[in-house]
């Protein structure tokens, strides 16, 4: 309560002048936002707006420097009618859904495990992070080799265990190639899920568990009624980030299968890439990128809505 007093005193001594400059002061404080705002406009709003602008024109390689026309939403109609769009959207949803489900469940289990105290825990925990630290190019190439049909170690293992009789060409079979890439992506994502959940778990107050124990709650009841509700904000953030990140995965699939065989593991980012940089249909590529952007915006909106509900209930 002392501080404001001192400030008003100071202003009084400065006299009438300060009252006059008040308008300028609030104006000048906006100026401090300018660099940040400039950055946002330059590096975020402009590319997004430009991408959208590109998606309503008819730019391709032949008229890159020539006449370009405004075509409205014709590109969107073309894309929605394209069979490849349906395939890649479905694959993207399967890829994201399964990846997140397994990453989260396994990550959560490991987080609960590493939340206990046992010898060697810290070393194990940092080793787990390796999967997250490794460049995707390396992970993808490793999994490509491991899942190879002719000489892959994965087939060797399964055959030795007697699970399969004949080697399976995991990445060159239409039925399995998408799941091969999902497997690699799950492996990459587990450590991230684990670390975020673990940091959430460690901030949970111990006394709640002690009280529950005294009341005779089982381990499972403790998990469902204490851990899960308290972890809700962490889980929401994690799932949101996970979905956005996984939906955009490009390099992993590009290296492992290139979207093949035929289009069995073709996802939206690959679709956008192929249109923009292989067949040079820049406007169509921008259209797919815009559609992906809208899907992710919609998901983010759901997340924000859930977060607000969360805050209201607290």
């Amino acid at each position, binding site marked *: 309560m002392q501080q404001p007093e001192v400030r008003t005193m100071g202003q009084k001594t400065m006299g009438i002048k300060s009252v006059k400059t008040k308008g*300028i002061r609030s104006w000048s404080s906006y100026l401090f936002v300018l*660099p940040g705002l400039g950055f946002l406009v330059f590096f975020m709003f402009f590319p997004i707006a430009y991408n959208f602008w590109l998606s309503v024109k008819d730019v391709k390689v032949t008229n*890159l420097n020539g006449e370009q026309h405004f075509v409205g939403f014709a590109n969107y109609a073309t894309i929605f009618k394209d069979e490849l769009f349906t395939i890649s959207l479905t694959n993207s949803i399967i890829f994201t859904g399964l990846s997140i489900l397994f990453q989260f469940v396994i990550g959560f289990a490991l987080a609960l495990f590493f939340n206990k105290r046992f010898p060697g825990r810290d070393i194990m925990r940092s080793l787990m992070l390796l999967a997250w630290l490794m460049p995707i190019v390396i992970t993808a190439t490793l999994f490509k080799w491991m899942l190879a049909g002719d000489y892959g170690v994965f087939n060797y293992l399964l055959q030795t265990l007697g699970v399969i009789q004949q080697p399976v060409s995991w990445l*060159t079979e*239409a039925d399995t190639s998408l799941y091969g890439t999902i497997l690699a992506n799950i492996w990459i994502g587990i450590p991230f899920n684990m670390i975020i959940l673990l940091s959430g778990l460690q901030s949970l107050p111990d006394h709640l568990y002690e009280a529950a124990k005294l009341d005779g709650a089982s381990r499972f009841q403790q998990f469902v009624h204490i851990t899960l509700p308290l972890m809700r904000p962490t889980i929401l953030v994690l799932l949101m980030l996970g979905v956005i990140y996984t939906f955009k995965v490009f390099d992993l699939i590009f290296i492992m299968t*290139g979207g093949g065989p*035929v289009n069995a593991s073709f996802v939206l980012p690959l679709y956008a890439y192929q249109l923009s940089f292989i067949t*040079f249909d820049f406007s169509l590529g921008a259209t797919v990128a815009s559609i992906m952007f809208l899907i992710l915006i919609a998901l983010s909106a759901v997340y924000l809505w859930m977060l607000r509900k969360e805050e209201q209930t607290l």
Partner: protein
Amino acid sequence: MIKQAISVLAASCLMLLAACAPSSTQPTAPAPSTNQPAGSGSGSTGEVITLTLWDYWSTDAQLKALDEMFAAYQKVRPNVKIERTYVPFNDLKNKLLMGATAGQLPDLVAIGNPDLQSFAAAGALADISAEIKEWGQTDKYFEGPWSSTMYQGKNYGVPVGSNNLALYYNEDMLKAAGVEPPKNWEELKQAAQKVAKPGVYGLVAAGIKSEEGAFQFLPFIWQAGSDLNTFDSQGTVDAITLWKELVDSGAMSKEIINLNQQDVAVQFSAGKAAMMVNGPWQIPFLQKEGKVKWGVVPLPSNKQGGTILGGEDWAITSTSKNKEMAWDFLKFTQEPENILAFAKAMGYVPSRKDLIQDSYWQNDPILKAFADGMEFAKARAYGPEYPKASVAMQEMMQQVITGAKSPQDAVKEADAKIKPLIP
């Protein structure tokens, strides 16, 4: 307070400026005369003209060859400096397209010959028809590489050097199975099936869903007398049926649909396949890594012989301010002794008919197989829509090899997509 506002503004402006300043990626020496006309190119004025070049050459041998050529050129034109920027292979096309829209292109580019037409259509390359006509050496070149430098009857470049695909074979494996290197499809099928045994495939080729897969499959279509503009024909069906039969009989792995050309070379050099389809750029790799004894013969023929042209073209960009000097450099690269020196150092086959008679290519049995291929090596000069047609063909290959569609259906479907794209 106003002072404060001004200082904040100034500070933010400075920050923005700093962020936008061109990062000095090239250690550019002050080049005061880049914007001045090249003049007669005689160099009498003593001004330094800088020619900028983008390319994707990266191996030590390639860089050495480039340096030697630049040095030789500098002796002839002491006032010209060539400033080279390396752009990774996968980025070059994007960077050229971006440069074309922004008007920031180098003077010269070396691009893959199937891409030249796309960039000519995009307006990124300069029309040098008049200069080529005056120069008058067109008839000395093989038709394949020369056709790749043209678009809609106009000249947009000159060949850097060529390569093509041939059939590598493992001498020991073929001898053990008692077969000769195959000369036609029937022999190829029999040989591949005969040498195949557990852990060893008869043949390996790249069937990956990318331009590399298309590159390896197109020669088979041509050998069967078909082409992209007559795609829905028996020849195409025969070509893909050949691959399908090789896969079904176990002579070729069905994993080829996920192999690129380097993967193919690795399998061959590791002795996992007795024959492979590949280009001369794999020779250094096989000499260094290969534990196998190998030889090379031209690709087997069907109705006719056929192979596909690879390699690069030189081109001058449409925005170059030193077009005359750039053309002078291109002419220099095409002088016989320069072509020979450069091709030998870079592992190219010369694109000129007379130069291929050089003993370097004629006396080496391996290089001769590639030199012989030049006579019928065909370029992918199908116009700017070729990449789309290629994607359709790649899908067709994968559909048939995985057994998702019959050869007839898959070819018919691909033809419907290719027809409007290829004139």
